[in-house]
């Protein structure tokens, strides 16, 4: 008896009841109106990897997929793209109070008695038709600036890594909300039934902060929308391969049977998560074939290897992940999320950032060139950036050839390329110290709104009701930066 009541309770939870009855009656009415069985199928709720909740976008999508090259740790804008010749004059002097203002600093410099400004140890040069300034650490990126839209005026609310990454990936500093890729999967569905909609690949630079898998979680959205992490090595997706001795046909039969039982359970319990489970089993089975094929780069010609650099031969490197990102994009995976850690240079920044640049510069640029020659930059959006910037004053001791920089949410640089973004553009300005934004500020939510816009989604209209209110990626914020749209 107790069991029966519990079952009824789960089955008829108010929200699920409404959801089911709403959709049920709606689809019933519509299918009888249209008089076709096929149509009834087309409008059953998106529980599989077919169509998304939106069906098609709110407006025609310039971007069909996104490759997000997340530079985790907070790359210094001052040694990458935000050239500040004025700091030559100010080098070693205290940062003026008028500049520092009330912007908060992290606790890590709380005990510091002096805040000497420090110029970039690395030179800058202008590149391309657009004349964008790029540091000498990024020679390959310098060559592709005419394909990039460099945004120098991004700012965030968070000052520490995890909340800052969460804010970028889920729109909220508090973990638990759905990530960008999950929202896209939920809203737009899949273009390839054999691969997940949302793939995550990580690579590690020196001494990186750990990554939290919640930053590719699905939050309150059905769990099959979460990011699937591809690892390097023998098993790109953990526990995907059949155990030794189990034949693919046997596995298929077993899964079919499990599916039947799951359907039965769904009829009894009515829990939508059971549908997620069915989907995940099916996807896993299909991925047993599709993943090994996708991550196999042995067919790539030599000139492609050369383009991405020596590292591409090392599984788990950033370069390898960039090449895999292109291959996944070719297979129409909607959201391809790379993380490269190690940008957190509180101390010994000159050495640290040089190594990071060496690991990432060539492959990032190669990815752009590779997508471009294939015509894929037409409908693939590539994003490069970290979770915050770094201070223009030195953290730790400033010596002749060494310094550090602390976290800085006030301004930092990102770039975007491809699909509907103006190429060869530099957007936004910071002050002479790269401490405050002085023109065209772009908040994290504005960036997200713009990205959604490019994907054909009105960020205010892709919502999910949870705990009594509707949530969206940008929650109650965000405006599309129209100026950078082509």
């Amino acid at each position, binding site marked *: 008896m107790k069991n029966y009541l519990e079952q009824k309770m789960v089955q008829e939870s108010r929200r699920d009841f409404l959801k089911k009855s709403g959709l049920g009656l709606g689809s019933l009415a519509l299918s009888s109106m249209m008089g076709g069985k*096929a149509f009834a199928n087309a409008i059953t709720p998106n529980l599989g990897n077919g169509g998304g909740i939106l069906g*098609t*976008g*709110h407006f025609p999508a310039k971007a069909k997929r996104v490759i997000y090259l997340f530079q985790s740790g907070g790359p210094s804008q001052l040694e990458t793209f935000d050239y500040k010749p004025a700091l030559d004059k100010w080098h070693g002097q205290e940062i003026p109070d008028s500049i520092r203002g009330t912007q908060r600093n992290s606790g890590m410099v709380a005990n510091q008695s002096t805040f000497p400004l420090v110029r970039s140890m690395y030179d800058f040069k202008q590149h391309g038709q657009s004349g964008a300034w790029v540091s000498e650490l990024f020679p390959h990126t310098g060559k592709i600036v005419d394909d990039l839209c460099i945004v120098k005026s991004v700012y965030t609310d968070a000052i520490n890594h995890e909340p800052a990454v969460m804010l970028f990936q889920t729109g909220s500093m508090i973990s638990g909300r759905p990530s960008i890729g999950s929202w896209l999967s939920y809203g737009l569905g899949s273009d390839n039934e054999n691969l997940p909609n949302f793939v995550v690949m990580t690579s590690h630079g020196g001494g990186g902060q750990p990554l939290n898998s919640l930053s590719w979680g699905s939050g309150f959205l059905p769990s099959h929308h979460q990011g699937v992490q591809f690892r390097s090595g023998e098993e790109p997706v953990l526990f995907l391969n059949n155990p030794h001795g189990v034949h693919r046909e046997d596995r298929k039969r077993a899964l079919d049977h499990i599916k039947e039982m799951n359907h039965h359970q769904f009829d009894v319990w009515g829990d939508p998560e059971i549908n997620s489970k069915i989907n995940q089993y099916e996807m896993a089975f299909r991925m047993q074939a599709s993943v090994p094929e996708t991550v196999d780069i042995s067919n790539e010609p030599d000139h492609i290897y050369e383009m991405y650099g020596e590292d591409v031969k090392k599984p788990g490197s950033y370069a390898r992940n960039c090449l895999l990102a292109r291959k996944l994009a070719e297979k129409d995976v909607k959201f391809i999320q790379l993380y490269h850690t190690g940008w957190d240079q509180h101390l010994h920044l000159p050495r640290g950032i040089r190594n990071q640049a060496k690991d990432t510069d060539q492959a990032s640029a190669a990815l752009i060139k590779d997508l471009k020659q*294939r*015509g894929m930059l037409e409908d693939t959006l590539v994003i490069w950036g970290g979770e915050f910037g770094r201070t223009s004053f030195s953290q730790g001791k400033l010596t002749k050839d060494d310094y550090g920089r602390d976290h800085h949410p006030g301004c930092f640089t990102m770039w975007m390329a491809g699909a509907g973004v103006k190429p060869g553009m530099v957007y936004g300005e910071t002050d002479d110290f790269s401490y405050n934004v002085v023109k065209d500020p772009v908040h994290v939510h504005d960036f997200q709104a713009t990205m959604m816009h490019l994907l054909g989604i009105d960020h205010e209209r892709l919502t999910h009701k949870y705990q009594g209110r509707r949530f969206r990626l940008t929650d109650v914020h965000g405006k599309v930066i129209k100026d950078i749209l082509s």
Partner: protein
Amino acid sequence: MMSDLYLFFGRFHPLFVHLPIGFILIAAILEAYSILFKVKQELFSLSIKITLLVSFISSVLAVTLGLLLANKGGYDTEALSWHKWMGIGFTVLALLLWLTKAGYLNINKRINSLLLMGAILVISITGHYGGNLTHGSDYLLTYAPEVVKSIFGAEHKTDKKGATLPTSIDSIVVYAHLIQPLLEHKCYSCHNSTKAKGGLDLSNIDGIKKGGETGAVIYAGESDDSPLFNLTILPPKDPKFMPPKGEALTYAEIKMLQWWINAGASFENSIKETALTDEVIALLKRDYDVDVVPKPYYEEHPIAVLDSSVIGEMKRVGWAVKPLSSEVNYLQVSGKGKVMNARMLAALEKAKAHITWLDVSNMSLTDAVIQELGNLENLTQLLLNNNNITNAGLEQLQRLKRLEVLNLYNNSISDAGLQLLENNSALKKVYIWQTQVSVEGAEELKENIPSVEIIGGSLR
């Protein structure tokens, strides 16, 4: 120094000009009343006498101040001359009327009445010329109904900003539709053919070209040196700031002037013939409702929704089909990676007007199949990459007049094939990586279609 003092007093002219008018009207009304109702009271007659005297005295004052004001110049001489002599004439009439009424002069009563009416007529004409001098000759009738305008032969004016702009961007002439209206709104009242302050008449092209007393007002290409622009961006308190009275130019108007002058200050060129900047594009959109950003084909030519049974069939035979958006009924269709068959091809034909983005990459397509794609009249994006297409296949694509993006990478296309596309003038991007197209071949197509970008050639 003296002339400044003249001007100081002269500017009280508008204050006094209304007194003689008012008093002569009162006198006329009282006179008419006394004749009509045969009023014989002495007091009534005295009132008329006093009114006429005040009208005369104030008219002397007005004429004197007017002469001081006119001393400075800058007015249309003909209109000024009429205004001046009519004003003086009125003063004389007012004097005669008063003298008669006061009994110093004996004039026949009938003639006296005629004189009074004449005085009112004369003062009306004087007032009209005065109004034209300050407000411009077209001030009165600008907003008059068409019928009234035609009676008085006033020109047809199109002054409501934006309201009369041609709908086609090609036919918007920068001067006639954007610059002339703003000059009319903000500058004509002082710089017209009748008033021409500073010797400058902005109401016609010759006047603008001629400039004013201090020289030219526009130097083509040099907005910073052109007074027409640079006086509008002075601090409003600067004595040279234009316009000195009335509404200042808006930001957009200032930018329009700057843009027009920098682009050569042509009086004939249309928007399309004038180099645009991002800011001007944005302002045209915001303040003039002119969208010069070329719109995608699907937006400019909306299409009705396609029968869902056709879409259903396309899906059944293997196509992935989606409308471009919930509001745009054109279709994006992909068969990427599948094997093309006759049924798939036939299904395309049924949606031929609706398909605008088509991805048939990696489908082992041969020339025979490509020919069928020539029927998809509204294709704007065609991804043919990674197939077995040769030059012959491209022949049929000549029919795709709206094609903007064509991906040919990894096919057996050579220069000769690319040249077949020379009349596809809508083309913006052609991808030719891993084809046999040479740099020269790419250049040749660019000569025929200057806007096309050919991508991937040097990376082969």
